[in-house]
């Protein structure tokens, strides 16, 4: 078995890399694949919290790479009944504790055993980023429809391309359909035109994402929620299924209809 190693990155922090990793990983596992997610954000580990596996950590990524434990000792199986595993980051070390080659070798090992190896990349473009992208054959960029996040995504795409990761795909996270409709937020087309990469998913801003993260249960478990559904579709697209992107419709209320009538749909943001 040869799995695919996919890095999930963004450049800017706080746009939802870790949430996306947890949800895409869970989504792929729900589709019946054997999946492992690796948190490479050494020193600032989060993925275990989002997945609700914090209490089960014994060994971590640095222990594995330094040979202090066997690979499968550091793998934590997901609480749910899926073939989903996590290798957590070390919290007491830093990004320089591992080398890109070491992570590449580890992922090559894991690819033999798993269908998907997802790497949760730390923010920034320094050592941690270099470690994370070294092992991957594919990349998914997470951005939000904000100029700062898009600027960083643009930079990261350039860096990925120069290190041989061509055709990264894009998730636009935290889209607020109401704001897009009012013209206060960039829409999918604007982002797509600027970054000139394929969009693999649109995730609406949804309170359920936050609630789910706090409870340690990725939001894909709630298929009916807006963001859960979006992440499930992204997982399907990663898996090769051809699902068209859905237009995010604002929840229609009297107020938004009224706004539409009086023509307040002008664009108020600017491209920097």
């Amino acid at each position, binding site marked *: 078995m040869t799995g695919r190693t996919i890095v999930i990155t963004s450049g800017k922090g706080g746009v939802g890399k870790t949430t996306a990793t947890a949800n895409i990983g869970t989504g792929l596992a729900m589709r019946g694949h054997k999946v492992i997610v690796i948190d490479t954000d050494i020193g600032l580990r989060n993925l275990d919290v989002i997945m609700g596996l914090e209490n089960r950590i014994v060994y971590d990524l640095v222990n594995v790479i330094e040979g202090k434990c066997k690979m499968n000792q550091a793998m934590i199986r997901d609480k749910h009944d899926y073939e989903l595993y996590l290798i957590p980051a070390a919290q007491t070390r830093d990004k320089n504790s591992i080398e890109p080659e070491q992570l590449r070798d580890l992922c090559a090992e894991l690819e033999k055993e798993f269908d998907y190896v997802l790497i949760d990349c730390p923010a920034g473009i320094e050592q941690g980023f270099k470690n994370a992208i070294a092992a991957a054959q594919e990349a998914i960029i997470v951005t939000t429809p904000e100029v700062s996040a898009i*600027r*960083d995504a*643009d*930079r990261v*795409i*350039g*860096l990925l*391309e120069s290190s041989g990761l061509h055709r990264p795909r894009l998730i636009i996270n935290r889209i607020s359909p109401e704001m897009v409709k009012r013209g206060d937020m960039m829409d999918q087309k604007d982002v797509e*035109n*600027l*970054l*000139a990469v394929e969009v693999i998913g649109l995730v609406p801003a949804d309170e359920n994402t936050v609630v789910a993260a706090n409870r340690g249960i990725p939001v894909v478990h709630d298929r009916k929620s807006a963001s859960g559904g979006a992440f499930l579709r992204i997982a399907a697209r990663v898996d090769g299924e051809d699902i068209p992107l859905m237009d995010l419709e604002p929840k229609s209320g009297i107020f938004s209809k009224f706004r539409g009538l009086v023509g307040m749909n002008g664009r108020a943001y600017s*491209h*920097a």
Partner: protein
Amino acid sequence: MLKTGVVQVAAKGTDVAFVIDEEAPFDVVAGELREYLAKQNGLWSKGNITVNVGQRMLARDELTQVKSIIETHSGLKVTRFWCSPESLGTGDFQIEAKAATVESSANTSGAQRQPPAHNEIAVPESLPDLPADSISAVESVIQDLRSRQNKNGARSRNRTEALFIKSTFRSGESVHHPGDVVVLADVNPGAEIAADGDIVVLGSLKGWAHAGASGDTKAVIIALELPSTRFQIAKYEGISPTTARRKSKSSASGPKIAYVRSRSIHVAPFVGRFARYSKGVPYDG
């Protein structure tokens, strides 16, 4: 025009040029040249001559040989050599060219040496590693024959090949090219392009662009969309106008050209010709 295989002699008014086939090996050229001059002995009894070596990369002693062949077999005196900037960059002349221009290109920022403007390089008079008499007499200035013959009167600027950037030029990427730069996509915010020649963007120019980076104020920036807030031509800097009236005028969509007129940068709709500059909107902040 006379033709003898690899060596062509072009006479144009009082100018005479020996144009030598770029593909032919040097020995053949030398032989042909000797033969031709022997045959035509008497015709070339007197005068100054320019040798155009084109793209070929001649070593210094080869140039000296050509010069001595011509001068011994006829009454001509070789005063100049012409060659293309590519051969200047890679040929043996590089050493001299560098020495001659090192001061003028002190602001060169990259690894790439900038061939000097106008392709005119005076070969220094004394070359210690060569017999003094062979070169010291050559007060040769190397020019690009073609730039001179260009009927369009194109500016005899740097003729280094244009650099084509074929995918989106992204934030954090930067390039300094000694010639023109053509981008077949967008230039995103945070990207930097510096070119000694013109910059053409077949997309939206949102990053920082510097045309005529080595000081050429005739350089232009052309873009299908020009929302960029900052760009530079030679030493002049364009800052997006902030007043509402100007903004509405200059931010109208469509291809734009930015150029320097009376010491400030102007931006005008690009209508396909360089000549229509006059209605430009001042773009100097």
